[in-house]
Structures are given as C-alpha cells and as structure tokens.
C-alpha cells in the first residue's frame, strides 16, 4: 500500500508527506511525491522516498497538472494518491480520478488505518455529520485541506529523483487576469483568535464594538454568511461554504449558530458564545456561553480585557 503525494501548495504537500510517511512506515511501504516547483530534494527531507519532477508545468492549470499526476501514478503505481485540497486541488483530484477510472474522496478531514484498510472521514449533509468512507479501487484518490496533518522535522534521508517526460496538453482554459484578494480575508484560516459577528449586529457601524475587542486581543474578525453574502458588510464568512477556521479562541457575537456556520468553527480550541437568545443553537456548542445583549456585553468585555492582570 504505497503513496503518491501532490499539492501545488508546497507547505500542504509537506503536511501530506508527513501523514503518508507515518502510514507507509506502519505498513512497510513507500512514499513518492510529484513536484511542480523548485528544490525537489526538500521533499525527500520531508519524507518522500522518490520524487518525480515534470518540467514545463508553469502556473496551475487543471488539464496539464492532471496529465502530470496521471503520469506520476503510472510511474509510481501507488495504491493511494494524496492531493492537497486547496480549491485547485479539489478540482484536480476528481479529474485525475476520472482519467484513471477510480474512486475519489474529496476534501477529507482525517485518515487512519483500520485492519490494513485506509478509512477517511469527511463532512456531509451541509457539514452537520461526519461520514467514514473506504474505497476498493487501486489507486484511490483522496484530498485533504491545509493543517489536517503536521509536517515532519526535515531530516537527511536518502531518496531518488526521477524526471518524468509528460506530453502536457495545451490548457483550454486561458487565464485572462488574476486579481489579488484583500489580504485580511486570507488570514482568517491561520488566525489564533477570531471574534465574529452575526445577525445580532443591527448596523454596519456597530461592528466597531467588535473591532475594539479585536484590537485589544490582536484578533481577526470573521462573520456569518448573512453578514457577508446578504448584507455585504464584510468580504468572507466563516462556515462550510466559506472559511473553515481553527483558532485557539473563537468568540461568536450575536451569532445564532446554524449548522453551516458551526461546521466551519468545529476545530476551534475554545468557543465562546455571546447571544441574548438563551435558546440560540450557538450556546449548545460552545465552551463558555454568555446570555446577554452584545450591545452591552461587548463594551463591558472590552473594559474587562483592558483591565486584566
């Protein structure tokens, strides 16, 4: 049961290598990696036994990248293909799977060995449930988002470099323009403290109550889907269709706690809920709940935070 690892995101590729190495060591098998960028030997230090390189890939475009992964699968003959579930990776994995005519489990949240079988966990039903899934095809493609696994301490190891000759197809989707997104929204997923706003806020100006707390804590500000998608007060929301976050502290202010939102904050270490509605769903899934009006609680909280020892 051997592995092939690919992600166009280098850090994510290392995280996947860490997990693949751990599983391969348990089974006495090998780990190969496909590298699109520079310094392929670093992938050996991160756990790969064999590294395939393909020249001429350029920036991510799904058709040539699919051809490269398929060639690497043919060369490495793995039983499991790990792909990094960035948005690009999530459109790559199924295309690779259909190209090979095999099974694919996309955007998994965990993987383990059970009686010699690979079993993954994935969120289903809008994020309210976790499904455990297995696959009987060889290989099977599975993808994992950033920070599911930890990368290894880099170590001097022996590994082989193999250059693959791939007849790369001309991309049929042409990128005309690439517009950078505002930086702040990109930071939510790696933030260690997030304070977030829900429909309890009556006007956009009132978000300053939250901004004050964020400033004191050095926190990022998030919000629920209606605040962003319906009201347009902020760019990106937290939830299953938005950003999935895993801070050490998540403070939900005036948030009701829909299934979709809760699925996006599930991996937070500590969840605090502040909502005047005692029956709000968010209170049932938090570590500390405070039933109260955010317009009174947030100023008091700002004061208490300033005064803390």
């Amino acid at each position, binding site marked *: 049961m051997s592995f092939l690892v690919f992600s166009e995101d280098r850090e994510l590729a290392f995280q996947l290598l860490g997990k693949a190495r751990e599983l391969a060591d348990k089974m006495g098998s090998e780990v190969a990696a496909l590298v699109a960028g520079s310094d392929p030997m670093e992938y050996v230090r991160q756990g790969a036994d064999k590294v395939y390189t393909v020249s001429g890939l350029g920036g991510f475009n799904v058709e040539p990248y699919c051809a490269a992964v398929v060639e690497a699968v043919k060369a490495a003959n793995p039983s499991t293909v790990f792909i990094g579930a960035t948005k690009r990776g999530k459109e790559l994995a199924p295309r690779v799977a259909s190209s090979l005519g095999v099974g694919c489990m996309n955007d998994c949240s965990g993987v383990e060995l059970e009686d010699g079988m690979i079993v993954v966990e994935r969120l289903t039903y809008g994020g309210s449930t976790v499904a455990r899934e297995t696959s009987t095809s060889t290989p099977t493609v599975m993808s994992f988002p950033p920070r599911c696994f930890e990368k290894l301490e880099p170590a001097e190891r022996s590994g082989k470099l193999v250059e693959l000759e791939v007849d790369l197809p001309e991309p049929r989707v042409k990128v005309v323009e690439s517009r950078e997104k505002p930086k702040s929204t990109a930071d939510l997923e790696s933030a260690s403290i997030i304070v977030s706003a829900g429909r309890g806020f009556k006007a956009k100006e009132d978000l300053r109550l939250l901004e004050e707390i964020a400033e004191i804590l050095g926190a990022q500000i998030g919000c629920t889907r209606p605040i962003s998608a319906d009201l347009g007060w902020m760019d990106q929301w937290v939830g299953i*269709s938005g950003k999935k976050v895993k801070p050490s502290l998540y403070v939900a202010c005036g948030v009701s706690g829909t299934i979709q939102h809760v699925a996006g904050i599930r991996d937070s270490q500590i969840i605090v809920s502040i909502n005047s509605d005692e029956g709000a769903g968010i209170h049932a899934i938090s570590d500390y709940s405070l039933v109260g009006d955010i317009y009174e609680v947030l100023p008091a909280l700002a004061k208490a935070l300033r005064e803390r020892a």
Partner: protein
Amino acid sequence: MLLKDIPDLTEIKLDSQTRAPIIEGVKRRISEVDKRALEAAIRLKEKVGGEVVTLSLGDDKTKTALLEALAMGADAVYIVNEPELKGGDTNATSKVLEAAVKHAGDYDLILAGEMTLDSLSSQIGPRLAQLLDLPQVTYVKELDVADGKVRAVRDLEDVDEVVEAALPAVVSVVREINEPRIPNLMSIMRAKKKPQTVWGLGDIGLDAAEVKSQSYVQITSVSAPKVERKQIKIEAENVEEAATKLVEALMQEGVL
C-alpha cells in the same frame, strides 16, 4: 444543467441513539448551489437565447422536486431513474451522467453547482469534463457567454481569476453567483405542463451491473460528531461581572 435533489437539510433530525441523520420522509429539494447554477443558465438563455434542459440521476421522488426547475424557467427535465445508483459513488454517477448527456443531444454549456450540500464532494463537474474531454471552469461567481466562448470570474483562495474557454465547456458555480428567482403561481402552473422525460439505464445504453461494479467508494457510517464542549454558562449579577468572569475563565484556559 445538472441538478440533484437532496433532502432538505434544515429538516434533517438526528437519531438520538446512533446520532445518524434521519433521511427517510424528509422532503427533497434541488440542492441550493445547483439551483443557482440553474438560475445562471436561465439568465444566459434570457440574454443569448437557446434552451435550458436539466439532467438528474434520481428516483420516483425526483420528478416532484424537479418541478421547481421547470417553474423557474427550464424548458425540459430529464431524469435517469435508478434508485439503486442514487447512492453510488462519484465514479459511477459521473459515468451515468456522461451517457445521459450524450443521449440528450447537442449542448454548448454544461452547468452545475460546485458541490451538492449532502455529499459535499465537488467531484461531478470535473469528472464529467474529463469523461467528455471538455475544459472545466470551476468556482464561477460571474458568468457570460459570447462569440462561442465562456468568460468567467473564478473565486479562488488568494485571487479572483478571470478566464476564457471555447464552448462547449463544463462550468461549476459557487453560491455567490446569484440569488435564484422564486417562481410565481403562473410559472408553477405552467411547469406542470412542461415535459419531464424519465430514462432507465438501458435507455441510455448502460448496464446496471456494469455501472455498479464501477462504484468504488463505500460509506461505512454517517453520524453527527458528539459535541465535546465544556458548555459552561457564565452567570452574573450584571454584564460587568459577567465580562470579568469570562476574561478570567479564558485566562485560565490559556487562550488569552
């Protein structure tokens, strides 16, 4: 237009023993993001003309759920009625849809939601594009068609990517692309007169046993994760005291 009817997620309850979702008896609706893909298709039709037909893999209940698509403005509905395959994996499902697309006739654009909210797999668009050897344009939040080309804005993590591809192509859309229309009574009445065609696997040239043998992924269990939160209620005489207690608790947790 690819549409999937899924259980209404707001109506799903959990079995108190197994924490498994109870799907039986829950009303089925067109998956939310698929509905927005349909809205996008109808808007394109209103702009450049043409016809919008929808394709689903479903069962006897799918016809009822798909009336909404006809009421919104789809011209015709095609359903591959194979209840046993509705639970098949994405490899098998995409093979059925491939055969159905070919059987349905000529097309310029295949549209779908980026994910259906039940399985959250995000696989059908890319898989179908590969099987039909078409370009795939995923995560689309703005869409236009002109001069035999699709032009779209893709919503990626770090960038918004403006792309172009020649038709035919497979496009999958994200929720932000539009707000789907709510059909009025007249449209709902008219929908009942529009054609719904139901096919079996044999009609589209497939064999059930062979398709099933290509379904590889099995779901061994589905359940809601247990909430392992402390669920401590901060109680106090007034907000100042409550705020102070909360800050103290969080400092003890070591998260401040």
